[in-house]
């Protein structure tokens, strides 16, 4: 029994309680306390992460406590390589988001001068943020499927309030849409979780004990569908994606980062771990239709992104395109494509996080998310423009930046996958590669209209980034560049887990380059 993961969850929960109990009027203290707690969580996570043994057992730092003994429900936590990097992603993003959201809960001025006041207090916002952090760690750490489900659903609540109470003008609509979509998926998943428990008949929800238990192909397909639809909504995959642009556009920038950067990854994480390993035959049977949906997401998301007039919606649609890549990588079932997909989950968190935050800083200065309201920002605020540009370049997967490595691995891993013998995956990879052109269009056109050209009148009054804002963006940019040239630390952690997944899925798909180039 390792205390690490329960501590990682307990610290933010305790922090949230403290922040919530602070007396009225101590907003600044609430912010500082939240930042401190999130930094403590980050440090603890890093200390834990360095103790992870890449060649060791799959699940490490395990802790299992009885929870509802009559149904065999356990509070079971533990991490494999993929869960570890996603927890680390969350732990890195939260303090950044706290600092970025410093004034987000204070109310925002919209372009026409009206003040959008939040419905709840500042300290509640930050308290919710810490609750959300605990749940994000919990959902990736759960080794008990029922516990995973609980976190999967419970995560909705803080996010619902963060969007619905602190968001933009259309926040109620967006929050409800987000909630309804997710609840619908969650319902299907709940049914599948319970059915899995019943059919397996092992009296436990523990994931390691349920791998390979369900043999009947028809049962596998039904249960797979239940999980998959929930994850597809979460990810989100075309055509169940329309909640994301609304939610991301209405959420405060920081909340949008956690929503798109972390929460959505639960969907793709779930596909890789649960859909594939619990129901391998069904996963293989459904691969082609799912890859087709993924490719549609990639191209469709990119095309719709090009046509957006609102920065945040544009970024949300680019994410739909990127999630398509992740799903394609997961279901192409090769070592390279799946490692690429897992790496993509992390890199996308950094890249989209940076882009959302930079856009958020821009929007905070103008009170408008509309691209047409900008122009010539580079001349006035070169620093902000520079960060925005680099984040954008990460969004178009420029080689040398981290997102390139993962996108390249997904595409080339899909092309070279021999999982299904046919050329269909190769075609999927080639079509998906068209997105590199579309990505250049959506990012650079936005850059041209916002940063370049003659300076628009209201832009002239902009102030460049302050120290707080630089501290928010600089680490993300450093990570994006660092992992762009040195992705090995992440891949070394991810690779063994992917190998194990492929063994459990019984796909005989050796790594394409048996032994790499370096002798």
């Amino acid at each position: 029994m390792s205390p690490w993961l329960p501590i990682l969850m307990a610290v933010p929960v305790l922090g949230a309680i403290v922040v919530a109990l602070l007396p009225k009027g101590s907003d600044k203290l609430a912010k500082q306390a939240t930042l401190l707690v999130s930094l403590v969580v980050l440090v603890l996570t890093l200390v834990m992460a360095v103790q992870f043994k890449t060649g060791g057992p799959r699940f490490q730092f395990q802790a299992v406590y009885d929870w509802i003994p009559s149904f065999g429900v356990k509070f079971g936590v533990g991490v494999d390589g993929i869960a570890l990097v996603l927890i680390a992603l969350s732990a890195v993003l939260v303090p950044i988001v706290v600092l970025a959201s410093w004034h987000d809960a204070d109310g925002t001025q919209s372009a026409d001068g009206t003040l959008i006041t939040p419905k709840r207090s500042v300290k509640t916002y930050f308290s919710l943020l810490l609750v959300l952090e605990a749940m994000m760690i919990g959902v990736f750490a759960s080794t008990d499927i029922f516990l995973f489900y609980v976190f999967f659903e419970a995560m909705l609540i803080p996010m619902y309030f963060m969007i619905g109470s602190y968001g933009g003008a259309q926040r109620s609509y967006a929050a409800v849409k987000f909630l309804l979509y997710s609840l619908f998926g969650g319902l299907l998943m709940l049914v599948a979780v319970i059915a899995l428990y019943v059919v397996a008949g092992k009296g436990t929800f523990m994931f390691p004990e349920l791998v390979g238990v369900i043999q009947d192909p028809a049962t596998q397909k039904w249960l797979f569908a239940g999980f998959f639809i929930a994850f597809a909504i979460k990810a989100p995959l075309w055509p169940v994606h329309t909640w994301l642009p609304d939610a991301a556009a209405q959420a405060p920038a920081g909340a949008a980062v956690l929503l798109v950067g972390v929460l959505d990854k639960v969907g793709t994480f779930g596909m890789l771990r649960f859909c594939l390993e619990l129901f391998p035959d069904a996963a293989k049977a459904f691969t082609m239709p799912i890859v087709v949906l993924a490719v549609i997401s990639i191209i469709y998301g990119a095309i719709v992104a090009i046509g957006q007039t609102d920065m945040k919606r544009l970024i949300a649609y680019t994410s739909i395109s990127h999630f398509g890549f992740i799903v394609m990588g997961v279901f192409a079932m090769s070592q390279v494509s799946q490692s690429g997909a897992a790496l993509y989950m992390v890199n996308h968190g950094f890249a989209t996080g940076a882009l959302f935050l930079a856009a958020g800083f821009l929007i905070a200065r103008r009170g408008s998310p509309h691209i047409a309201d900008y122009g010539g920002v580079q001349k006035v605020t070169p620093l902000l423009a520079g960060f925005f540009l680099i984040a954008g370049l990460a969004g178009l997967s420029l080689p040398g930046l981290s997102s390139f490595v993962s996108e390249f691995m997904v595409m080339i891993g899909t092309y070279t996958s021999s999982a299904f013998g046919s050329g269909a995956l190769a075609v999927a990879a080639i079509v998906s590669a068209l997105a590199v052109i579309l990505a250049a269009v959506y990012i650079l056109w936005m850059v041209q209209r916002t940063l370049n050209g003659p300076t628009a009148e209201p832009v002239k009054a902009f102030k460049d980034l302050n120290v707080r804002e630089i501290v928010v963006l600089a680490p993300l940019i450093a990570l994006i560049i660092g992992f762009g040239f040195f992705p090995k630390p992440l891949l070394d952690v991810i690779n063994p887990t992917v190998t194990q997944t492929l063994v459990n899925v019984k796909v005989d798909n050796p790594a394409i380059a048996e032994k790499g180039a370096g002798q």
Partner: protein
Amino acid sequence: MESPAEIVQHTAGGMIGASWLMIAFPLLGAAILLILGRMTNRWGHLLGVAMSLASFVVAVLTFLEIIGLPAEQRRQAVHLYEFIPGMVDMGLLIDPLSISFALLITGVGSLIHIYSIGYMSHDPERRRFFSYLNLFVAAMLLLVLADNYVGLFIGWEGVGLASYLLIGFWQFKPSAAVAAKKAFIVNRVGDFGLLVGMFIILATFHTLTFSELGKQIAEHPPSGGAVTAIGLLLLLGACGKSAQLPLQSWLLDAMEGPTPVSALIHAATMVTAGVYLVVRSGAFFFPPDSTQAIAVSVVGAATLLAGAIIGCAKDDIKKGLAGSTMSQIGYMMLGAGLGPAGYAFAIGHLITHGFFKADLFLGAGSVMHGMNDEVNMRKYGGLRKHMPITFATFFIGYLAIIGFPLLSGYFTKDGIIETAVHHQPILGWLAVLGAGITGFYMSRMVFMTFFGEKRWEKDAHPHESPAVMTWPLMILSIGALFLGGYLILSNRLYFFLSPAVGTAEATPEFDFASTAGLVTLALVAVGAGFAWVRYGRAEVPAVAPRGSFLTTFARRDLYGDALNESLFMRPGQWLTRFAVYFDNRGIDGLVNGLAAGIGGTSGRLRRIQTGFARSYALSILFGAALLAGALLLVGNI
């Protein structure tokens, strides 16, 4: 006929082991200048120059170490670190081909850095300019030095980024911003080809590293559809970067960038990366009569004509030179498609072109510097007396590019033409024709600029540029005078390159009196004479005459933009608009309708945003979830 030598893993230290410094210096320079920003205003340009020069020194020392080795040991792979575990490691390949490029990039690059001190002296953002130049040099060196396709691709996109930033250096001008974006996007079309090419290489040969690839190919000589596909896809990539048909349209717009950028990136180095890619990937373009190899030559021949024709119609001196760049790279492509027989001439022309075209572009910049940034040659005239050094160096560059006997361009271009006439007669004679047109448009440029009557704007006070600008011009023109002869006579470059690119069936022999060569000279003379009649002797109208259908055709860049617009841009816009509409109304409409239906509010969720509708829908879903769960539990346990 011999294949390239085997690549050996470098173990001893020495300069080859430290060759990564070549990339590290300019990269460090770029990082310092970008991170410190305005703090480096006073000395930023000096740092940029120093880093570029340091890189040049490393390149020279590495080159000296290479030529000290026996020929079969001149290909050395330097392992750097594990990049993507299990797929590819990062490393450098130091061989005659890559070091030739490295010398050109750092040598000409340093001269252009120095020139830019003067040219950009009035720009408040000069240090930003130098940071981008340094970034470019680092990326370009990675492109040519990487020992695998992934590293090459990182450099490939890195130079694309630098090009984007530098074309848009004056991004407050909408035309510059649009040109920068266009360059990047058109290049990405080519990148698509390079990416998919890499997919197929990895699937077929299980490696992306040049040394492994060499072994695989030696053991199982590739053949069949996969190799043709790889070749054609790499060619698509090359077309994007090197502005070859059909991806040429971005280069003319790229002239929005400051002139040193046009000289360094859009003439001397980056745009030749496509030629490098083809030569480096020679095994996929083998044998020279394979579909993909012929395609390379055809693209080259078509572009050399298209660029020359465009060059004839431009009044903007930079755009005229840009058309000429397209055309000259077309020659290199034509040569590169001919296999080892053409490689030495193609690379030779690439190197000499790097010198004389940089010379011409910087000369044009020097003219603009003295003429209030005027680019319209119709407003020049008679400048040779006012800018004697600029004139002399420009004139040498001019003689070199038209292939005046014994100058650099004569040897390298004629080499390509003769080899092409021998192997692909039709394309070869088209190249002869192209040389004639080159004679015309380059003479036109020289006559309009330096000869004839003054046609200046009133406030123009032409003056010679400062020494920091004229010295680089003089050094470059020395290269334009002698380098070609040095490289081509006694086949120096051919023998130097052969370990890296292989040898041809017969060692090429430079023939001073070949039929094609003599016809070329005659046509060049005719072209120059015609230009003299039209632009030297006759008065040049200050406003361009309307001209014939053909002139309009050339002025409009052969309708390349119009074609792109009607084939891709407009349909793309319609598709985008339709997709957005479909997403908002189709999918989202359906979902909203469904959600509203579940919530019992009959399709008005979007409008009814009261708490009632919300809680109603919520409670229903929660209830349903509980119910379904309970039923399942009860029913089965």
